[in-house]
């Protein structure tokens, strides 16, 4: 199962996202941001790649700002665009 990392610009976004996904019963793990990625806020979420679209939609609805998305390639984390995972809705 492929995994992804969601990083945040502040502790509060990371903590709120952890609470939100727990309440929504979405599988995730709050982990320290891997050194390879950089510090950001120091916390990030390890999630299933297959669930990123649903997770980002939840974050959007709950006004949680995401700092970036990483996918694991050859044992390393590689930053990827958020665009393929965002659902655009007509206002």
């Amino acid at each position, binding site marked *: 199962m492929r995994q992804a990392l969601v990083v945040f610009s502040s*502790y509060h976004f990371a903590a709120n996202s952890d609470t939100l996904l727990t309440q929504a019963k979405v599988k995730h793990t*709050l*982990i320290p941001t891997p050194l390879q990625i950089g510090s950001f806020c120091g*916390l990030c979420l390890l999630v299933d790649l297959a669930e990123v679209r649903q997770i980002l939609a939840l974050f959007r609805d709950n006004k949680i700002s995401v700092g970036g998305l990483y996918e694991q390639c050859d044992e390393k984390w590689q930053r990827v665009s958020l665009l393929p995972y965002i659902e655009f809705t007509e206002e």
Partner: protein
Amino acid sequence: MITVDARGQACPEPVILTKKAMEENPQKSLVTIVDNIVSANNVEKLGKSRFYTVRKEERDNLFYVHLISATTEPEVLQPVTKSAEGAVMETTFSRGRILLLSKDYLGEGSEELGRNLMKTFLYALGETYTLPRQLLLINGAVRMTATDSPCLPLLVGLAEKGVAIEICGICLDFYGLKESLSVGHITNMYTIVETLTKEEVVVL
């Protein structure tokens, strides 16, 4: 062979009786008979901490814990190997390193922050190649063993990697978690005191 009959004795009495028999009969092998698994496990731990070779058997609803006196120093824990990025790396068990956790959050200040720090601490601990030998959970830390705790899968992961998770039985009773325990082993205050006074412990 010295026989310690601790049938019908509540914990920690079997441990106390066994300990007394050990001290009165140095270099001799013993067998302690108990009627419950928790006492058997605690006597087993006592034996191992004192470098006896331990063999446990169950017969007719009784547990016989054979403690064979050691004449030589115990073997140092053998490191297990773990493959990472094509290289074989060693996982080192710091033989003397035990982490004592007394609450379910890390540090002082905001408990909310501390709970998130604890989750990330346990995750990072599982990722390191230098695993602790034992996590000793007392008081509020035992809440991390609750089935709805986000820390439970992390503790299970550490246990699967060979880290002994020892949990205070009094504390599990207090928090009403004894019956639902799904990770680690129940320990008692005598074993905890012995650990804290004999081993290298890091208090968190």
